[in-house]
Structures are given as structure tokens and as C-alpha cells.
């Protein structure tokens, strides 16, 4: 690896910090929108009418079955330009992250809901609640607790996926890592530093999720 050139990191520090903030922004926006969309998609996929279910099944197949790299390119060059010109890479990245994470989150929702004992629905329904009331007051509040651990994992995955937004030149953390690397034609210093930042971010996130999980458990 040769000598480490700290000057590269010092030079780029302000930009790395800016990039980290955008990375965090991407992650938070992606998961927030993904949660909303994912709930809808998850419920759609649980429908017992197949003409409702099938589009959702294919949505999930597509987003889970193709590399995120391709999804983000498609979004930026084909979809977003339809309503925004020129397409802003930050907007495209957020939409791609949200749609992608929604596919995963919908599966988490579905698993969470299906993990709740059938007796809970039956008790709610036998008290005269409608399906919607039972979902809202009885099933979802319990399902959400069980979804915290898999959602935490999805959160971390998403955080790392944001790094692919560099490909459409959204100036997040990895983008600055690549830029710094090519200015000095050095791979190590920027990549290792950038990956340390990712590590700190993911570990903090893990810690945070653990805490939330523990609090929910004792509640």
C-alpha cells in the first residue's frame, strides 16, 4: 500500500463531511418514503384478489431481482426526465432508493403482519371490528415491534446502497471518495477513509436500533 498520504484526506475533509451529510439525508429520505410505500405494497401483495396482487409481486421481483446500479441509472435517465428537466441527481437518487427499499420493506411488513397470531385478528373481528380497524388497532401496532430488527438491517443496507448514487454524480460520500482518488491517482487513502466513515455510521445505526429494540421490549 506504500506510504499513507494524509494530505489527501485533509484536503478533502470538508467535502467528505458534506458528502456524509448527503449520504445520511439519502438514507433517511429513502427509508421514510420506503416505509410509506412499503406498507402499501405489502398490503397489496397480501390481497387475495390476484389482479391486485400480481402487479405488486412484479414490482418486488423487479426491484429485488436487478442490481441497484441499473435501477438508479434507469431512474435518472429515463423516469425522472419525464417530469423534471434536467433531472436532478439528488432527486433521482432519493426516488430510486425509496422505490428499492419499499420492495424490501414491503416484505418485512408482510412477514411482520403474518407473524402475529391469528387469534389476535379473530379476537378483534369477533368484537365487531372491521378488517381495517383490526389492522390499525391490533395487528399493526404489534407487527411494527417485530419489524424493528429487520428494518434495522434494511436501514444499514440502504445506507451502503446510497454509495451507488455516485454513479449519477450525486455528491455523496462515495462520490467524493472517487473524486479524491482520481485527482491524486491513489486508491487507498480516500477509499479507506470513506469506508471508515461508513463503518462509524452503520455501527451507530446498529447501536441505535439495539436501543430502540430494547426499549420496545421492556415497554
Amino acid at each position, binding site marked *: 500500500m506504500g506510504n499513507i498520504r494524509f494530505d489527501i484526506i485533509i484536503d478533502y475533509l470538508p467535502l467528505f463531511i458534506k458528502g456524509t451529510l448527503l449520504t445520511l439525508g439519502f438514507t433517511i429520505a429513502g427509508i421514510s418514503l420506503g416505509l410509506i410505500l412499503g406498507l402499501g405494497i405489502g398490503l397489496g401483495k397480501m390481497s387475495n384478489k390476484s389482479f391486485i396482487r400480481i402487479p405488486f409481486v412484479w414490482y418486488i421481483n423487479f426491484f429485488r431481482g436487478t442490481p441497484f446500479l441499473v435501477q438508479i441509472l434507469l431512474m435518472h435517465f429515463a423516469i425522472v426526465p419525464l417530469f423534471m428537466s434536467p433531472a436532478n441527481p439528488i432527486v433521482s437518487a432519493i426516488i430510486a432508493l425509496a422505490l428499492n427499499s419499499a420492495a424490501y420493506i414491503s416484505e418485512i411488513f408482510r412477514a411482520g403482519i403474518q407473524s402475529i*397470531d391469528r*387469534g*389476535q385478528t*379473530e*379476537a*378483534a*373481528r*369477533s*368484537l*365487531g*371490528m*372491521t378488517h381495517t*380497524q383490526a389492522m390499525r*388497532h*391490533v395487528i399493526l*401496532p*404489534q407487527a411494527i*415491534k417485530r419489524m424493528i430488527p429487520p428494518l434495522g438491517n434494511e436501514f444499514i443496507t440502504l445506507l451502503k446502497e446510497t454509495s451507488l448514487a455516485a454513479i449519477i454524480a450525486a455528491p455523496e460520500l462515495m462520490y467524493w471518495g472517487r473524486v479524491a482518488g482520481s485527482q491524486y491517482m491513489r486508491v487507498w487513502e480516500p477509499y479507506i477513509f470513506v469506508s471508515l466513515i461508513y463503518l462509524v455510521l452503520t455501527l451507530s445505526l446498529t447501536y441505535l436500533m439495539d436501543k430502540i429494540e430494547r426499549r420496545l421490549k421492556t415497554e
Partner: protein
Amino acid sequence: MISVKHLKKSFGNNEVLKDISLEVKPQEVLVVIGPSGSGKSTLIRCLNLLESVSGGQVVVTGKDLTDKKTDINEIRKNVGMVFQHFNLFPHKTILQNITLAPINVKGVSKEEAEKKAKELLAKVGLSDKADAYPDSLSGGQKQRVAIARALAMEPKIMLFDEPTSALDPEMVGEVLEVMKQLAREGMTMVVVTHEMGFAREVGDRVIFMDNGYIVEENVPNELFSNPQHERTKSFLSKVL
């Protein structure tokens, strides 16, 4: 109150109820016994449409459940159900468990629902547990809360599906006591149970089910001391 005629119920190719007919009159307590898998739970669950009916007719409080126009939720308000495994809502306090349906289904005000809930908790002997969560209660306490929760909707009929068989023997008594009191107050009840003492003491009629049929039906003392059918005799010899 309840009139079942030629009720049939299948799960896939498995016919679980085969031509069941019975009547329950107001204020009557009907006890259902029978071996495991005979269809007792399925029968009782057909009475509030937790299972859809495959054939025949079920009329509850004057309304035909098999008629598609009947509003199921309307009927369920009149029919309370108590399950073997309590099915309390673990994320809500005892008080919230009891008030949830009255507030959201009947549109009762929160104050009124809580007042009523506290009366019911007093009735089942658990006034001090209003703010506890289900997990901190013993099995017997949970089942008494489940009964209070069902009563909060002021049903005309109560269905019980083996309400004591998941309980430690010590706790069976306290739940049966609450049920006996309900019977004394004139509640119409259908009870699936293995507690023969309870059947004798409170039941107006007992039906013995086997393999999807009602094999025998009688007043409790007659049925227990003088069973007519072979299958009833062999069943009673094992459980008494």
C-alpha cells in the same frame, strides 16, 4: 336466539361438520362436549362467522348469517366470544383491551367506556389490574379479562371455546365462577368444555359431538349418568 339447520362445513375436501341442527333458547346454557377434532370449535366459530358456512342455515338473534346481505359486524356486536388462549391484545393495558371495541365499534365515549370497563373488572374481581398489561397476569386472570372484554360490547349471546383448558388447575375455578355468575344472570351461552362438573351444575342441555355429527343430546344428568350411544359411553369413561 340461535337456530342452526343442516349446517355443513368443509375445509377443502375435509368435511368437518356434517348436517348439524340445533336450537338455543334465550337464557339457555348449552354445553358442547366431544373428542378432539370432532368439530366443536368449528361449530362454535360458525355461530359468529369466524368460519364461513359451507351449507345449511344459521340464524342468530333473528338474522340469517348465510344471507350475504347480513352485516357480519352488526351480528358480532351481539355475540361475544371467549377463546381457549385468551387472545388479549398484549400491547394494550387491561382497561384499553376492554374499551377498544366499545369506543371504535360502538362509538361510545372514552369516559363512558372506561366507567363500564371498571364495573366489569369489578365483576370479574380484577379492579386492581386496570392499568396492568396482559403479560403480567396469570392465565386465570387473563381469561377473566377476556370475558370482561366480550361483555363490554353488551352481547346477547356468549360463546366459550374451552375457556379453561389452557389454565393451571388452580385457576380453573375462578374462571368457572365468573361463568356461573353470568349464567345465573340469564346470559345465553354456548360453552365448549371438558369440565363436566360445570356442565352438570350450569348446563341446561349438553350435546355430544363426534366426527362432525351431534351424536347425543340431553340434559346433563341424563347424558352423564345414562349415555345412550357407544361412542358417548367410551368418551365419558375416559374423561370422567
